[in-house]
């Protein structure tokens, strides 16, 4: 039997020899997930801000809904969007199924509730005086919002990292909506699923290592950034 260590050595070789097929997959993964995060973040943070700073009817219900949406499995999101985007579905005319755009859409749906919930928790714990101080010093509401986001930046970066972590490693909706097409919609998680089904564990482990390194790197970076924030408070 091929040992884990042998597969791991081969994985490291593949990674550092610049295996182009492997790096294409890694590139697709990052480009799709980063775009999904960029599209989702502004609206998510604005939503979180409205939920944290203003009271309006249905606010509590919305907070509960976003917290519940956190635990929706990726496959359910994938299936729902699949039905919507399929030729026979209501959005079939967009012809988005099995494209990167469909994957991005799925990942937006997955990270949006997480971003809202975490940004909401962060913004809720910010000092209300910051908002009022900005306004009384003549800032417009938009400018005051930006000031609040700056004050809460460490928590918000944490939310973004968590959101990115959720979508970069997500296989269910990417597989369903992207279709795992080589050089187009095959990202790290779907490639791992495929390599495993083919029995080529080395490629799977190599890709798994990328995810692991990335998680490690992001967490260390986040720790650094938030550590900085803690000192000056």
């Amino acid at each position, binding site marked *: 039997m091929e040992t884990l260590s042998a597969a791991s050595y081969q994985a490291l070789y593949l990674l550092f020899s610049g295996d182009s097929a492997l790096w294409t997959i890694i590139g697709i993964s990052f480009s799709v997930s980063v775009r999904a995060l960029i599209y989702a973040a502004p609206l998510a943070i604005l939503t979180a801000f409205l939920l944290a700073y203003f009271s309006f009817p249905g606010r509590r219900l919305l907070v509960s809904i976003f917290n519940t949406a956190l635990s929706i499995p990726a496959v359910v999101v994938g299936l729902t969007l699949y039905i919507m985007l399929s030729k026979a579905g209501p959005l079939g005319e967009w012809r988005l199924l099995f494209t990167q755009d469909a994957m991005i859409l799925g990942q937006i749906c997955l990270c949006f509730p997480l971003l809202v919930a975490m940004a909401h928790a962060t913004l809720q714990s910010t*000092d209300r*005086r*910051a908002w*009022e*101080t*900005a*306004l*009384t*010093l*003549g*800032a*417009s509401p938009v*400018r005051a919002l930006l*000031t609040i986001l*700056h*004050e809460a930046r460490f928590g918000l970066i944490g939310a973004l990292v968590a959101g990115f972590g959720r979508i970069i490693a997500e296989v269910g909706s990417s597989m369903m909506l992207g279709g795992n097409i080589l050089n187009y919609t095959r990202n790290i998680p779907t490639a791992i699923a495929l390599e495993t089904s083919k029995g080529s564990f080395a490629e799977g482990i190599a890709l798994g290592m990328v995810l692991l390194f990335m998680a490690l790197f992001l967490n260390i970076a986040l720790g650094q950034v938030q550590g900085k924030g803690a000192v*000056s*408070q």
Partner: protein
Amino acid sequence: MSADTLRPWLKMQDLTFLRGDRTILKSVSLDIQPGELTLLTGQNGSGKTTLLRILAGLQKPQQVQFEFAGEQQKWRQSYRFLRDQICYLHQQPYLFDGSVSENIAYGLKRQRMGRQAIKAKVAEALEQISLEHLAQRNSRELSGGEKQRVAIARAWALAPRLMLLDEPVSNLDKRSRHICYDLINQLQQQKIGVIYTSHEPQAGHLKINRHLHLYEGEMTTKPLTNEKAAVVELVKGNPNQSRG
């Protein structure tokens, strides 16, 4: 103070504020003269802070009528004006994450001032509060008294018509209190109006022009005990006429 100070630049009438079923402020009216130093006293929970926040355009009351430059305005048209003209300082002022200079420059940047002009104004403000040596210090590293002074300088730099100080000295030690009182007196000399609140009638060394008192949501004018007060009664009309 000349005759024009007798015409209020801001009239607030018939202010009512409810929190839930509780009436916090009951049909309060107030005239504000330019450059006037007002002491506002009242027990904890008497509505002092609420009144200041409404005046600063930060809290919407259930009912109010403002009049400035001779025009009657509803809340919707007023709050923007109030925010522009009036500066509110929290009991423990909030300083933004960043250096002392950045904090003082915050409001100036919103006024689209040039970079050189901002720099000069920040230097001037730091001089006012004698904290030039802390210009680059992060605001989070300041003491309570220093924070209070920076907050006053930050507001002063904007040259507001009126500054609202919410219990500015209550958390300060004796030395810081005196520095703070000196700063308030300086504001008055520069014709910046000040309303400051205190839950005790001790005014320290302030040359107050008027003493207002809030009790159970209604406002009364108290006689001045301070001998140094320049003008005994500036208030036109009767601020404690309650209609509710």
